[in-house]
C-alpha cells in the first residue's frame, strides 16, 4: 500500500507538488505572521505583571479551542480558501509563541539584569544583548510547538478549501482509497516530525551554552 502511494506520487507530480507547495505556503505564512504579532507583544507585556497576566489568560483560552473549531470558525467569518486558512492557522500559532516568549523573558536571572544595569547599559542594550539571547531557547521551543501544530492544522485546512496535503487524506477517506489516503498522510507526518527534529537540532547547535530551564 505504501509502495502504491509512493508510485502514485512518482507518476503524478503535477498533482502532488502543488498540494505540497500549498501546505508549505500555509505553514510559512502563518508562522511568519504569528512571529510578527507574538514576539513584540510578548516582549512588550513581559515586564508588566498585569499585562502579562491578561495576555497569558487570553493565550491559554485560545489554546483550549480545538484546531478544528478554529479552522471551521473561519468559514462563516471569512469564507473558504487559502486566506481564511492562513488566518485560522495564525490564531493557532499565536498562543505557544506568545506564552513561551513571555515566560522565557521573565525567567532571566535578576542578578544578571542588575549587573547589566550596573555596567551602564541602556534599556535597549539590556534587551538586545542580555535578555533576548538568554530567552532565545525558550522562544524557539514555542516556535517548535507552533510549527508542529500548524503543519497538523494545515492538513485540516482541506475542510475549508485551503488545499494542501489534507486534500489527499479527505478524498482517500471519502473513496476508501487507502493508497491515496497515504499520499496525504505520510508526507504530513514526515513534515511534522522533520520540523520537530530540525528545531531540536537548531537548539542543540546554537544554544548549548544556555542552561535548559
Amino acid at each position, binding site marked *: 500500500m505504501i509502495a502504491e502511494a509512493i508510485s502514485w506520487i512518482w507518476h503524478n507530480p503535477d498533482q502532488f507538488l502543488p498540494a505540497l507547495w500549498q501546505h508549505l505556503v500555509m505553514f510559512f505564512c502563518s508562522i511568519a505572521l504569528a512571529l510578527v504579532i507574538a514576539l513584540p507583544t510578548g516582549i512588550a507585556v513581559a515586564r508588566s505583571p498585569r499585562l502579562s497576566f491578561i495576555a497569558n489568560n487570553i493565550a491559554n483560552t485560545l489554546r*483550549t479551542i*480545538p*484546531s478544528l*473549531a478554529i479552522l471551521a470558525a473561519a468559514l462563516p467569518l471569512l469564507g473558504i480558501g487559502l486566506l481564511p486558512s492562513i488566518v485560522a492557522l495564525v490564531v493557532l500559532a499565536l498562543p505557544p509563541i506568545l506564552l513561551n516568549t513571555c515566560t522565557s523573558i521573565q525567567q532571566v536571572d535578576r542578578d544578571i539584569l542588575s549587573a547589566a544595569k550596573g555596567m551602564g547599559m541602556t534599556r535597549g542594550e539590556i534587551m538586545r544583548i542580555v535578555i533576548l539571547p538568554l530567552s532565545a531557547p525558550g522562544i524557539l521551543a514555542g516556535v517548535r510547538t507552533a510549527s508542529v501544530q500548524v503543519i497538523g492544522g494545515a492538513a485540516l485546512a482541506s475542510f475549508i478549501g485551503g488545499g494542501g496535503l489534507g486534500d489527499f487524506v479527505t478524498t482517500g477517506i471519502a473513496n476508501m482509497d487507502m493508497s491515496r*489516503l497515504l499520499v*496525504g*498522510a505520510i508526507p504530513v*507526518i514526515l513534515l*511534522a*516530525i522533520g520540523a520537530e527534529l530540525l528545531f531540536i537540532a537548531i537548539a542543540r547547535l546554537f544554544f548549548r551554552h544556555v542552561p535548559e530551564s
Partner: protein
Amino acid sequence: MRWATRHWDDILRALLEHLMLVGVSLSCAFVIAMVLSIWSARRPKVYALVLLVTGMLFSIPSLALFALMIPWLGIGVLPAIVGLTAYALMVLVRNIATGFHAVPPEIIEAAHGMGFGYWRQLWEIELPLARPFIIAGLRIASTTLIGIATVAAYINAGGLGSIIFAGLDQRYPEKILIGGGLTALLAISVDLLFLWLQRRIARKTAREAQA
C-alpha cells in the same frame, strides 16, 4: 439558535459520546503511561528512548494519525480510541516521570535503610510524592484530547466534532459555533476540575506533612 433549541438531544448525545471517547482513551493511556514511567524513570537511556517515541507519536498531525488507523482498524470508535491513546502518552509519561525524578534521593535511601522492598517503596513513598505531577499530567492530557477528539468525528467516531463537520458540509455556521464552542467549554471545565483537584491534593499533602 434555532437549530440548537430543536436538537438539544442530539447535542447532548454528541457531548456524551465525546466524553466517552476522551474518558476511555485517557484511562488506557494512563495505565500504559504509568507502566512506561515506572519502568523508565530511573533508567536515563530507556527514558530518553520512551520520550523520543512518544514525542514522535504526539507530533503526528491528528488527521494523518486517524487516517493511518483506517487501513489497519477501519473506521469508527475503536481506531479513534487507539489514536487518542497514542496522543496522550507523551504528555502523561513526561509528567509522571518528572514526578518520580522529583522524589529526593535521600528519601529513597532512607526507605532502603528501613528495609522497604521495591513495591512498598513505590506504593508508599514514590507514588504519593509524585501525585501532584501525575494530576498535572492528566490535566494537560485531558484538555489536549478533548480538542483532538473533534477530528475523530471524521472517521465516524461521533462526538462534538460530528456537529462541526455537519456544519462545514451544510455551510451552517450555527452548527460550527455550537460544536466548537461546546468543545472549548468542555475543555475549560475539565481543566478547572483538575485545577481544583490539584489544589485539594496540595492542601491535603501540606496537612499530612504538618501532622
